């Protein structure tokens, strides 16, 4: 049996545009997470770094740089890459190491800096995350691939543009209350409706922004830290799954099989069911992705997530708060920091640190993080002690 594992500390910088380099930001949030956990850097046994687009900063192998800055140059490190799900993949690896008894404490840190690239270059970087010769070379961009999901979902289930807009309006309302968020400004449905089309039917406000950011987690063996200084985030399940890389070769276009598989496996590991989850952080790189995630994870039947969102079910004060952090949509999407930052939100909610965005009940939470168009997915379930 794996040992019980906790996230004992978590920290994030403000997403958006960083003046400093990725390695500086990564080291800073790491030290903050370690201090929040009540640990010293020397207690860390392994550092798992995610920095998928590190080469955009002309820097690879950033783990030793971070560890050196933290005063622990002898600690092993490696970089875990799984596109937009990189740091949830890193969390999974840290979980496996700690649960398996190889180390008593591990550091997970995700960082990305892309704001120095122009939109064309950044769009091209993201296109590399898909199957370049068979998708991107045939005209697909990253928003374009999710746009085809939206097109198929609307056609099959009657999902509407305003239902997509309801996701954007909700997540911006949440982001407005999150000091870590890239966008801290609510938007109206009218703003959504009048925003330019990027890849039909997706508008500008359906898309997450290119963000810089860094987020870190301290993962420990519960038995080694009997007197935690924070409310530990108990990792009840850590599941990952893959699916056929190319969207066109998958049996369905209106769901992501990797999310379905990782979700089912997570609920099995945790012996929980969706009805027991108090709030979720899901991968809303585009508004349609939030609706598809809620359906893939079993929270709504196919086609029902859009109407439920429009009715306010997933609002911060609704029956099932979804993305109280603002999600990728408003908090921002610094690719490799995103998965870890979802867990920062869980940590802050469990510890009563979420301020005005605190959800009514925060005892069981789910984090869902997708790589590319769902060729990779991670689902973690957390509870309080």
């Amino acid at each position, binding site marked *: 049996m794996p040992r019980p594992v906790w996230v004992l500390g978590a920290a994030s910088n403000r997403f958006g545009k960083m003046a400093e380099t990725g390695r500086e930001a990564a080291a800073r949030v790491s030290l903050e997470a370690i201090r929040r956990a009540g640990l010293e850097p020397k207690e860390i046994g392994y550092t798992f770094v995610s920095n998928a687009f590190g080469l955009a900063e002309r820097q690879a192998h950033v783990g030793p740089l971070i560890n050196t800055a933290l005063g622990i140059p002898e600690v092993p490190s490696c970089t875990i890459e799984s596109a937009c799900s990189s740091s949830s993949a890193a969390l999974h690896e840290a979980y496996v190491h700690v649960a398996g008894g190889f180390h008593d404490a591990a550091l997970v840190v995700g960082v990305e800096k892309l704001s120095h690239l122009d939109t064309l270059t950044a769009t091209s970087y993201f296109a590399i995350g898909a*199957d370049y010769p*068979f998708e*991107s070379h045939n005209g697909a*961009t990253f928003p374009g691939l999710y746009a085809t999901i939206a*097109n198929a979902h609307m056609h099959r289930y009657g999902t509407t543009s305003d239902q997509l807009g309801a996701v954007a309006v909700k997540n911006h309302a949440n982001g407005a209350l999150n000091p870590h968020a890239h966008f801290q400004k609510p938007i109206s449905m009218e703003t959504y409706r009048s925003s330019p089309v990027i*890849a039909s039917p997706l508008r500008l406000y359906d898309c997450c922004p290119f963000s810089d950011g860094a987020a870190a987690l301290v993962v420990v063996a519960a038995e080694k830290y009997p007197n935690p200084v924070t409310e530990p985030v108990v990792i009840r399940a850590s599941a990952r799954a893959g699916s056929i890389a190319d969207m066109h070769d998958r049996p369905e276009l209106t769901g992501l099989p990797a999310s379905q598989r990782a979700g089912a496996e997570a609920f099995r590991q945790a012996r929980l069911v969706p009805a027991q989850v108090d709030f979720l952080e899901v991968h809303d790189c585009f508004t349609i992705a939030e609706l598809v995630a809620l359906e893939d994870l079993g929270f709504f039947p196919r086609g029902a997530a859009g109407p439920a969102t429009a009715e306010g079910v997933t609002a911060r004060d609704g029956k099932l708060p979804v993305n109280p952090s603002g999600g990728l949509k408003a908090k921002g999407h610094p690719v490799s920091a995103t998965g870890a930052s979802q867990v920062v939100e869980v940590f802050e909610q469990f510890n009563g640190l979420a301020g005005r965005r605190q959800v009514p009940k925060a005892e069981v939470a789910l984090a869902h993080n997708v790589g590319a168009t769902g060729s990779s997915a991670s689902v973690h379930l957390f509870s309080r002690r």
Partner: protein
Amino acid sequence: MAERDPAAGEPSAAHTIREFTHGYEEERRLRGFRSASCGFVTATWGLVCPRCGRADLEEAALSGEGRVAAFTIQTVPSEEFVNDAPYAYVLVDLDEGGRVSGWMPAVRSDGDLAIGDRVRWVPSYKAGVQFEKA
């Protein structure tokens, strides 16, 4: 090199990604594979069928005719298509089975195309798999 297991079927590794992309850009062929076991048809390079897991992919000549399964009008392109936007990126269900990614330079707005529309592959020297309305 170890002997190949004769029961494992023909090695699809005989084809390269370059042959696929050259196939439709220069040789005017839309290459594909069909799994002898499950019948899955794909125009994506691979070694083993991604649906049934058997190493029995056989070359299949694809007609390039089919129906639109989903599409989007790309107004913000990547570098490779920077001079072509707006255009449609389409997923096409081929008549013989299988679905391929492609683009339609002549389709420039949502009203120009619908799910279910018939399209056909146009051999072209320009990037990628191109379709036109049938």
